[in-house]
């Protein structure tokens, strides 16, 4: 019943934010405009991504988001074609820390090749050809780190930005910071980020301020939709609102559309799609700069890990998580959805409450429990306790009476020094023993 109620607060907030987007801009951009561009197709198609928890896509717009990578992707690469022979390239590699799976690090690099212009000079008031070309390029590279504590993630980028125009170049060190709060209320995430903190860049005579971006965003999930809203202040512009809509057509295919309130060359609407197949994902977005021309964004992402590791689906999976889980086939997802809808409160109760029989039993043919146990054992022996925990919880979820696995999970918790959960597991084993 509750889901039928309208979230008036959210609607009001979105209307309020939208109102900002129709206010006239007060000032203009500052230097370092390439730092304000979209570097992934998803970012371009959705426009409002500050609270969009799709993992390593988000390194450059909210570094906290990287920690919420759902598909365990390690690598992302983009090619963006702007009008007039301007091309953008983006590469990022991301990985969890071995000793702390709640933390993640990334390295990234992005570059703009602005092409060249035929250099012209002014002589008096007359045109004179210099007989050479003048090139434009800009590069940024850096390190990103993100960490999650409970529902809140925080991230920081340290990056170097350089710009080169006609032989004049300058560079500057900058920082981005971001936060993501998942589950502010049910189905609602909130994120904030401040990008391009740092000093000035000097190409020639003047030291120029870099365009900073202050952004706060919300993501609200409703059925198969993610509704996104960002309030963004770019440089000296007045705050603007951007909106995005992500439609999860099915498990692997997403359709995206966005309204970019900052861009004013045209109606600012962009759209695209994302397709995931196992560990590989491809995204495409289309945007345009009115009469200047079209923009095409192509982003590839992939995981270097075995698919198995993508089973990072906690027992408290939300519906949206299930949808986004590429490693589960459709049947599993449907079943999991049923389970999650009907037993939203079940979560870890399968461990705590022996009487709480899970209503869902997965078809064993689709999930090789024995193979999972082998992997769990291997993970345990290689001291990858986090991974072992995930696998064992998955087994326990589907075989709540598997005492051996329960005890093994208790051992894992013990090794992880999570004594509370270890005791719970051992108690439950003991109760099973008494029962039997």
């Amino acid at each position, binding site marked *: 019943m509750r889901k039928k109620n309208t979230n008036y607060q959210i609607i009001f907030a979105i209307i309020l934010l939208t109102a900002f987007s129709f206010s006239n801009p007060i000032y*203009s951009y500052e230097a370092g*405009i390439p730092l304000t561009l979209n570097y992934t197709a998803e970012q371009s198609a959705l426009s409002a991504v500050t609270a969009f928890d799709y993992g390593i896509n988000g390194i450059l717009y909210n570094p906290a988001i990287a920690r919420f990578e759902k598909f365990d992707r390690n690598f992302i690469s983009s090619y963006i074609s702007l009008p007039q022979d301007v091309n953008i390239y983006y590469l990022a590699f991301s990985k969890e820390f071995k000793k702390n799976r709640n933390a993640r690090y990334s390295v990234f690099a992005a570059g703009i090749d*602005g092409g060249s212009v035929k250099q012209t000079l002014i*002589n008096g008031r007359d*045109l004179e050809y210099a007989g050479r070309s003048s090139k434009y390029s800009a590069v940024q590279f850096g390190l990103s780190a993100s960490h999650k504590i409970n529902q809140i993630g925080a991230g920081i980028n340290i990056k170097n930005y350089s710009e080169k125009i006609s032989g004049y170049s300058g560079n500057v060190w900058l920082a981005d910071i971001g936060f993501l709060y998942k589950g502010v209320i049910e189905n609602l995430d909130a994120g904030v980020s401040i990008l391009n903190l740092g000093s000035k860049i000097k190409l*020639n005579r003047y030291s120029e301020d870099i365009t900073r971006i202050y952004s706060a965003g919300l993501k609200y999930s409703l059925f198969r939709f993610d509704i996104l809203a960002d309030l963004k202040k770019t440089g*000296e512009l007045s705050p603007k609102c951007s909106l995005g809509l992500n439609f999860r057509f099915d498990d692997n295919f997403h359709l995206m559309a966005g309204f970019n309130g900052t861009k004013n060359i045209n109606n600012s609407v962009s759209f695209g799609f994302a397709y995931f197949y196992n560990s590989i994902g491809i995204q495409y977005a289309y945007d345009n700069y009115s009469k200047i021309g079209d923009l095409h964004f192509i982003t590839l992402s992939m995981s270097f890990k075995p698919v198995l590791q993508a089973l990072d689906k906690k027992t408290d999976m939300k519906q949206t998580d299930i949808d986004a889980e590429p490693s589960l086939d459709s049947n599993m997802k449907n079943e999991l959805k049923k389970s999650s809808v009907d037993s939203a409160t079940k979560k870890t109760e399968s461990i705590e409450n022996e009487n709480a029989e899970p209503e869902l039993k997965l078809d064993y043919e689709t999930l090789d429990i024995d193979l999972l146990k082998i992997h769990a054992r291997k993970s345990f022996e290689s001291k990858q306790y986090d991974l072992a925990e995930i696998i064992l919880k998955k087994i326990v979820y589907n075989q709540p009476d598997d005492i051996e696995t329960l005890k093994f999970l208790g051992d894992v918790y013990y090794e992880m020094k999570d004594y509370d959960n270890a005791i719970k597991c051992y108690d439950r084993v003991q109760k099973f023993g008494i029962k039997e």
Partner: protein
Amino acid sequence: MYDKKTMFKILKISFKIAALFIIIILYSYQVNADYQWIQYNNNTGYNINSIKFKGNFGIMAGDNGIIKTTQNDGLSWSNQNSGCLDKLNAAHIENVDLIIIAGANKRILVSQDGGATWLNRTPNNISSQIEFYGVCAVNSEIWVAGSSSLILKSSDYGQTWTKQYEGVNNIKMIKMYPSGIGTAMGDNILLTTSDGGNNWSPVSISISNKFIAGYCLNEYLWFGVIDNGDNTFSLYQTYEGPGKWIFLYKFNFEVKSICFPNYYSGWTVGANGNIYYTPNNPSQWEKINIDTQISVNLNSAAFSNLNDTIWVAGNNGYYYKRFYNYSDSEPEFAGIYANAGGKYFVLTGDAIELTSERTIARNKQFLRYQWSSQDLTVSLENTDKIKSSFQSSEPGRYFVKLEIDDYGTSRSSDYAEVYVFDTYSQIYSQDAAVSGNNNGLILNGYAHNIDINLKDIPEYPDFKSVSAYIDLKNFRTVPHLFSAMKINPLYFNSVRPNISLFDDLSYTIVNFEMFDYATGNHINELSDAYDNLKIKYRLPPSILKFENRRFAVFNYDEGTEQWTRKSQIFLYNIMTGLEIEISLNNFSIYGLFALPDFEKQGEIEIFPNPFIGGDGNYKTGRYYTGADDGSGIYFSGINIKNAKIKIVNLAGYVVNELVNDNDSYFQWSVLDKKNKPVSSGLYYAIIESGSYKCVKKIQIIR
């Protein structure tokens, strides 16, 4: 519905999110908070009449004897005991050991300890009705000026005073320089001195001298605000000495104070909270809003902390400060590129005006010019003006030196090259025609030939048909002006980029004045007799810079001040050169011009691109000066007429939208919609004119 607990949680979280939004937005504005006006009040409610700074040390003086000082750039102010309740009008900080304040009731206060204690240095031997409005000091010498045109000087820190001048007017401002040059301005009075005030001389000027405020930038450049008597107040500035004032701007409020941290950035404050500043040019001012509802009269403005923080003080104890970054608006170029106008051609005995209008400087009106020639046969007039008149009775090639400075450290020089010749004497008769081989045209040291043929026309026995053959076979560097009579330099200014590509080619102007050799009669203004008038140009082969360039003959219409093409377009051939012959209907001014490439393709040209404003090379661009002088970025081409231009950054944001109201070219200031300099980077330009549309990239380096 949600239960109360959930609702409370939602509300709580909503508040947190809202607070976070507000903090972010506030922080984002805080970054620029220094650019906002910050209001203070001295809590006494008394008017503050003067505020002055020297470095981080500042002082305020006002009604009821209030004095406040700061040692830390205004972070904190201390009340000081003046020992009087008089209205204090003016303050001056020579250094921390000599601070002077003057005001009503002939009050003069001096502090020699950074404003901590004040000594009453009121002179005894003058009327107590005297009110002082101005004060200044040089080292240990002090001058005060006020009502009754009274000027007093003290050389002993105010212990004794010497009367230097007395009259009937109110002197509002006095300024003295170590060189002894000084000025005093006031209501119907303008005095100058060159000997430290021992002798003050009234200056007669052509404008009203009802000065209500003044500011001296240096010994020569003074600003004065004059009450026009109709609630408007005009700003003037001296040029070429204190006797010449030029109008700059008219304010619609009573100006109380004016100051110029540097020549190109001035500030005025006055009645009803008005604050104006000039970001570039003292003849262009913008109103600045103080972010407050209070609209008090503002009496004084001053800069502290290396001229980057402005303080404004006014009535009822209010004072304000704001950080001001000059790099935001100040054009970088502060030097002078003297330009004496290049080459001139004139007949013997005729006068020609040499002009330095093409000189590049931020404000050419306030430069000092000096034309000179070492040749005794040359007569020069107006040698200290922008334009000088040249005359010589002897044919030849003359150099006239032009020296320019800004009364300060910037100076530059250039030479005008004047060719003086006599066409008449060179024409001689040949058979049935009169032909001339004019060896008097001396260009680049080489003689050039012009063959002139005058043929009999039976119907008009008194007149001849004329053809002129201009042979540039001795072309050395570039073709230059060929003239047989005086050329008005104004024509040069009408040469626009859409016609001429080269400075040099733009001077290929021909204007003939013909004479009948046999009789010596002057042949002109009889166009019906010269319907066979022809003119022929020839460019020699092998000039690489002309390869594949197109040329045409243009005619200058003095009425419309436009050049129009009179001939077909001819392509220069590197092997054979170029020869153009056209028939003329009348005597006029003709020129051979190279056509820009864009006319060939209909393309818009943007130059300079990249725009590099600060590299000192004027060919790669100069920061916009407000004049049509080659600063900023130019757009030209046959499609630029009435074009709409959008400048868009890489993020798809329209930085500026421009409309060309000029036929042949458009000059962009490289500023955005808010007149802020566009940041370095890559931009798109969308140019649309009717059905024509093109997109170009512009690179900008600041």
